[in-house]
C-alpha cells in the first residue's frame, strides 16, 4: 500500500477549518507592535534588557538568536528548531518584533488548524469550530502563541503528531514527535504519550493488559526510535554548524545536565502542577508582560499566563474517560482515550518531576496538553453530559478570555469594573 503523505481535504471543509486560524492570525498579529523595543537591537544582545521590548522568555531567546546570527554557539541547552524559525523570521521581516513574532503566530495558527483536523477526525465536523475556539481562547496559548519563544513550533509538531497518530499514519507521527523534540526538549514527552495511547486503545479493545504491553513493544520503533533519530539528526546538523560538541551525544549530555540542575528549594515560589488545573485562587496569574497605569491602577497592555476553563475541564474529563474505558469496549481512535492518555502522561510526568525531583515547573507547561484537550473536550462533554453543557462551557471559556484579553478597550474595562471585577488585581 503506497504511503499517503497528504490526504485531500474538500474545499468547503478547508475553509471551515481555516476560518478560526485565520482570525487568530489577524487578531494576534495586530497585538505584535503593542510591545515594541525602545533600544536598538545592538543594545539588546547582552543584558540588562529594559526597553528591549521583550515579552517573557524572549529575553532569553531573542538575544540568543542574535548571537547565533553573529555565528556564536549559544543557548546550547535548548534544541535549535524554534530558534532557526525565529532566525528565518528575522531574515524575512527584520530584527524587530515582526521578525520574532510573525513566524510564531503562523505556527500557532497552524496548531489551531491541526486541532480542527484532530477534532474532525475524532468526533466529526460538528466539533471543529468549538475545538478551535477553545484553543484560540486559551489565554496562555493566545498570549504565548505570538511570542518569540520555543513553544509555538513545538506545540504545532506535538499536535500534528497527535493528528497523524489518530489518522493511522504512525511513522509520520513519530517524525512529528521528533520535530517537536527538536523545537523544545519537553517534546520528549510525546514519545511516552504516543506509546500510552497505543496501549490504552489496545487495552480498551479487549481488556487485556498483555495485549496493551505487546502494542507498546510493537510501537517502540516508530514512536521512540524514529523520533530520537530525527532529534539526533537535527542536533548533528546544528553541531556541525557550531562545532560546539564533538558528537550529538556530548551535546545531549550537556542538555540533560542543564535540565536536571533546575531544582527548587522553596515550593511556594514554584508554579507546581496542581495549581495549573485549579482556578487562580492559590496563586496570582504570571505577568509575562504587564504595563500598569496609576491611578486608577489598570493594565492597558497585559499578557498574563493564567489557566482557563479548558485546563480545569480535566476534573470532568478524567472520570468520564476512565469510566468509559473501564466499562465499554472502545474503538480506535477514541476521543476519551486520547484525552485521558495525553493528559495522564504529560501531566503525570510534570507532576513526577515537580513533586518528587523538585524540578522547577511553570504553568505554561500545560500548553502541551491544551491543544489535545481542546480537540476532545467538546466531543466528550457533548456525548456524556446534557446537550447544552459544552456550549455553556465554551461560553465560559470565551468570557474568561475576554477578561484576560491583553489589550482591553476602555469600555471593556468600565464594564468589568461595573460587574464588580474592577478590584481583581489582574484586570
Amino acid at each position, binding site marked *: 500500500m503506497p504511503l499517503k503523505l497528504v490526504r485531500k481535504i474538500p474545499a468547503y471543509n478547508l475553509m471551515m477549518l481555516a476560518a478560526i486560524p485565520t482570525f487568530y492570525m489577524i487578531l494576534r498579529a495586530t497585538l505584535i507592535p503593542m510591545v515594541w523595543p525602545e533600544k536598538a537591537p545592538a543594545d539588546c544582545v547582552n543584558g540588562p534588557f529594559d526597553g528591549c521590548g521583550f515579552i517573557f522568555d524572549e529575553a532569553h531567546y531573542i538575544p540568543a538568536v542574535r548571537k547565533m546570527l553573529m555565528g556564536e554557539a549559544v543557548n546550547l541547552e535548548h534544541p535549535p528548531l524554534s530558534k532557526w524559525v525565529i532566525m528565518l523570521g528575522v531574515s524575512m521581516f527584520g530584527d524587530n518584533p515582526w521578525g520574532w513574532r510573525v513566524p510564531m503566530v503562523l505556527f500557532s495558527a497552524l496548531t489551531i488548524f491541526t486541532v480542527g483536523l484532530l477534532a474532525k477526525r475524532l468526533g466529526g465536523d460538528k466539533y471543529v469550530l468549538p475545538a478551535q475556539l477553545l484553543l484560540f481562547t486559551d489565554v496562555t496559548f493566545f498570549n504565548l502563541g505570538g511570542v518569540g519563544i520555543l513553544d509555538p513550533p513545538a506545540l504545532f509538531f506535538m499536535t500534528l503528531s497527535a493528528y497523524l497518530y489518530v489518522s493511522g499514519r504512525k511513522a509520520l507521527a513519530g517524525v512529528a514527535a521528533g520535530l517537536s523534540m527538536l523545537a523544545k526538549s519537553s517534546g520528549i514527552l510525546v514519545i511516552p504519550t504516543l506509546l500510552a495511547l497505543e496501549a490504552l486503545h489496545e487495552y480498551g479493545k479487549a481488556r487485556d*493488559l*498483555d495485549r496493551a*504491553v*505487546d502494542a*507498546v*513493544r510493537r510501537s*517502540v520503533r516508530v514512536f521512540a526510535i524514529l523520533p530520537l533519530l530525527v532529534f539526533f539528526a537535527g542536533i548533528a546538523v546544528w553541531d556541525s554548524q557550531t562545532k560546539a560538541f564533538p558528537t550529538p*551525544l*556530548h551535546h*545531549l*549530555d*550537556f542538555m*540533560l*545536565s542543564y535540565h*536536571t540542575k533546575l531544582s527548587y528549594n522553596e515550593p511556594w515560589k514554584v508554579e507546581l502542577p496542581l495549581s495549573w488545573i485549579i482556578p487562580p485562587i492559590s496563586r496570582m496569574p504570571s505577568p509575562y508582560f504587564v504595563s500598569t497605569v496609576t491611578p486608577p491602577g489598570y493594565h492597558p497592555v497585559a499578557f498574563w499566563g493564567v489557566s482557563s476553563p479548558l485546563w480545569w475541564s480535566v476534573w470532568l474529563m478524567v472520570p468520564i474517560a476512565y469510566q468509559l474505558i473501564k466499562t465499554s469496549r472502545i474503538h480506535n481512535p477514541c476521543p476519551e482515550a486520547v484525552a485521558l492518555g495525553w493528559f495522564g502522561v504529560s501531566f503525570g510526568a510534570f507532576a513526577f518531576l515537580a513533586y*518528587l525531583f523538585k524540578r522547577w515547573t511553570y504553568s505554561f507547561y500545560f500548553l502541551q496538553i491544551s491543544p489535545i484537550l481542546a480537540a476532545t473536550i467538546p466531543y466528550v462533554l457533548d456525548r456524556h453530559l446534557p446537550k447544552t453543557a459544552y456550549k455553556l462551557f465554551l461560553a465560559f471559556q470565551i468570557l474568561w478570555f475576554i477578561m484576560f484579553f491583553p489589550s482591553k478597550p476602555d469600555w471593556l474595562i468600565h464594564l468589568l469594573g461595573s460587574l464588580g471585577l474592577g478590584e481583581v488585581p489582574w484586570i
Partner: protein
Amino acid sequence: MRNWMTAVAITISMIGLSVLLHSPFTNPSLYTDILGFFWNDFASRDRIPYLQLDETGSHFEYPFVSGLLSILAWKTGGDLAGFYAVYSGMVVASALAMVYAMMRLHGNNGFWMYLVSPSLVVYGVYGYDVFLAALTALAVLFFTRERYSLSAILLALAFHTKLLSILFLPYALLRLDGRQRLKYLAVFGSVAGAPIIAMPEAFRAVVEAQTVWSLENAWYVHVFPDAASPVGPNTAPGLSTAILFGLIGMSMLYLHVLRKALSPAQFMLLATASYLMFTPRYSPQTSIFLLPFLPASGVLMLGFPLWELSNATIILTWFTTSEPFKPWSVPQTMTLVRFIALSTIFVQSMHAAGLLKKPSSAIPYLPRIVSVLRRLRV
C-alpha cells in the same frame, strides 16, 4: 527432602563463611556496608536512621525495612559484637527463607547448585540483599500459589528493603484480572505507601541516594569513560548520556520480557537480568537478588560460574588499585566479563522461556528485506 537438606547445608556454610570473613573481629576482614553505612555512621554515634542525620548531614540511604532491621539488630545486640551477631542471624534466617522459596518455586531439580555461589560468601553479610532476595522470592512464590494479598505484602516489604522488587509489580498486574488486580495494587500501595506518607522526606532522600549517582560498576563505563566516578554524584561530562543509555537499554529489555505467558519465576529471572545488564549502578551485592530465580533457566554451565566469579572479583580486587572505577582497571574489566556472562544467561533464559524465535533463513530478515526492495523497484 535430600535436596532440601543439601540446600540448607550449603546455605549455612556459605553464609557462615561470609559471617567469618566480614566480622569486625577477624583480621584482615572484608569490607561490609552494614558496618560502614549503619554502624559507623549511625549506631556507634547513637543516631537513629530516618529521624537523625549522620555526621556529614546525610540521610540513611536504604529504605525503611533495611533501616528497621538494622535498628532491631543494634537495639537487641547492644554493642558491635552483639549487633553483628544478631544481624548475621537475621541474614541466615533470610537465606533459609530464600532457599525454601527456591525449592517450592523450582521443585527439587538441582536448584541447590545455584547456592554454591561466591556472591553469597563475599556479599552475604554485606548489605540488605539477602533480605531483598528472600522477601521477593517469597512474594513470587505466594503469587504462584494465588495467595495474592500475602504476595503483595511481601513485595511491598521487599520494596522497602531495596526498591528493586518493584520489577515484579507490572507483571503481577498483567497476570491478574479485574478486582484481583485492584486488590493487589491496593494492598501493595497501602503497605508500601504507609511509611512513605509518615516520613516523606526520608523516603525522598532514599530515592535520591539510590538514583542520583554516577556509573558504579556498569560495563558501559568502557563506552563512556568520562562518566566513571568513585563515589557520590558527579558532574562529569558523559554521565547523563551514559545513564540515559542504561535506562533505555534496561527499559527496552524489560518491555521485551514483560509478558504474562512467562511463569513468575521466569519473568523475574529475565526482568532482573535486564535490569542488571543495563543499570548504571550495578553494586555487585545486587547479584544475590537474581539467585532465587536462576533455576528457571535450566542448567547454566558457562554463564553462571563466570558471572559469579567476575562478580566476586570486583570487591576482592577493589582495594588493590588506586582508581578501581576507571575503565580497564581490574574491577572494571571484571564488570565487562560479568556483563558478557550475564548476557549468555539472559539469552539462554530467553531460549528456555521460548522468547527466541528461530530465524527463517541463514540471515534473519533477509527474505523481508528482499521483498521490500522488490516492492520499491515496482
